[in-house]
């Protein structure tokens, strides 16, 4: 299943946030969206996931939802969004409970996703006992449990310290290598974008428009933190965005 954004625009009151965004998200690829603060990245992702309605334009699913998929468009949130009163297992069960699954099926799914995210030993832990990196792994496991057609990730690593971020990037690559998933990955971090994106969509300052789409051909598994090609791509992106990042940073917020 692909996704297609057709001329999407949106405003909050007088504040124009997105302007004529058209984009194709092909199956099995990771599309990264980067852009300065407040340019509407999160808004765009909420729209893709059906959590918000665009004022203009359409967001279309192209093709059928694959079989066995319990929740086609599945989010991974920046702040993990784990229920603090449920254990690791309970948090995953949460999203399976509304579907008619036998206890055996639920058990099977949970064991599977826990082992894929290397969490089997933490099944009965409460979120408060876990480090940030582990929490985000649980959120990933939960997302995988519904077998999503598209994973929508809004800065999933930005709440983590940089060492944990490095570890989780590796995990994401491994997960994708094992079973390629479609994903829209919003980030501020150009390093993450060049490490994980098959294509990188650069948005302008608010109102967000697409400035450029950078494709990276290197297979994910071959990219690593000190590859010179990636460094070059990252520098190129930074040159594109630097001035707008400065401007976005210096803007007074309306509160």
């Amino acid at each position, binding site marked *: 299943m692909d*996704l*297609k954004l057709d001329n999407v625009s949106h405003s909050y009151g007088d504040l124009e946030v997105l302007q004529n965004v058209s984009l194709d998200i092909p199956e099995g690829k990771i599309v990264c969206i980067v852009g300065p603060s407040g340019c509407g990245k999160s808004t765009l992702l909420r729209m893709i996931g*059906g*959590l918000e309605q665009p004022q203009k334009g359409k967001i279309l*699913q*192209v*093709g059928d939802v694959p079989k066995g998929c319990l929740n086609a*468009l599945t989010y991974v949130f920046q702040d993990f969004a784990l229920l603090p009163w449920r254990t690791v297992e309970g948090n995953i069960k949460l999203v399976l409970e509304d579907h008619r699954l036998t206890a055996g099926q639920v058990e099977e799914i949970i064991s599977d996703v826990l082992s894929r995210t290397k969490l089997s030993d933490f099944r009965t832990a409460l979120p408060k006992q876990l480090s940030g990196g582990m929490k985000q792994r649980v959120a990933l496991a939960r997302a995988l449990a519904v077998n999503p057609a598209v994973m929508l990730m809004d800065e999933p690593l930005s709440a983590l310290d940089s060492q944990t971020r490095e570890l989780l990037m590796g995990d994401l690559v491994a997960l994708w290598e094992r079973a390629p998933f479609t994903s829209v990955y919003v980030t501020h971090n150009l390093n993450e974008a060049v490490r994980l994106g098959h294509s990188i969509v650069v948005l302008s300052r608010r109102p967000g428009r697409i400035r450029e789409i950078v494709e990276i051909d290197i297979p994910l598994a071959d990219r690593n933190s000190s590859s010179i090609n990636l460094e070059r791509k990252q520098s190129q992106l930074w040159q594109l965005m630097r001035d707008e990042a400065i401007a976005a940073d210096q803007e007074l917020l309306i509160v």
Partner: protein
Amino acid sequence: MSNTNNATTSNNKVFKTVIFRGGGYSPKPLAWVGLSVFISLILMLEVLTRAGIITSLTMPIPSDVFWTLIELWQSGLLFKHLAPSLSRLVVGSFIGCSFGICVGIIIGLFSLARAGLVPLVAAIFPIPKIALLPLFVIWFGIDETSKYALIALGTFTPTVVATYGAVDNVDRTLIRMGQSYSLSWMSIVRKIVLPGAMPGVLSGLRISLAIAIILLVAAEMLGAEYGIGAYILQAGSLYDLERLFAGVAILSVLGVLVSAMIGLLEKILLKWRV
């Protein structure tokens, strides 16, 4: 592809709009509803009492209560009752709240004070003030002092609890920051702890002042000639429902006004809040 809401096919592919599943869980203000609920409730009561479906024993006719209020106002008695009540409210809750804030801050800052005073406050809290009325006469006499004392005692304990909770909630990194710049103890308390505790203190005041209004009636059991509480008590002892409800309506309006006032104060003092 003209109809965006249904599945359409082109090039053998199914196009389907992503369905919306967000929204809700974020109440929007609807100002007129509150007013209309009030008005329709009162109208309903008016009709039911006039028709006799609700007997005059159970509930007065709302318009009669209204006219009673008007009469009270025109006779000048309204002011005569309101003035002493307001002054009792202001003086009593001022004493109670300011003492409460001081004690609350001391509890918030010093382990010893906390250990000694918190259980005491917890034990005083559930004591009903009306049970102590006879003693208040002995302790504070029958003049304004006893009324002030009763309202002050009633507002003191909840203010203490709210204040030390607020001090506890002051961001400790801000305090560490102050220490890291070697600010004096007084500077830290005055410039960091106090403003940081302000939001909690104000929302505590909201409750304390509501309690003060409630205690007005108890306070005016003690030798009060005039006062909204005395007015209500007298109406109650004569089973005069119109005047009873008129008095209650005044207290209710007073409560809403006090709450609005605190809302205003919050807007002014806490405009730095996100």
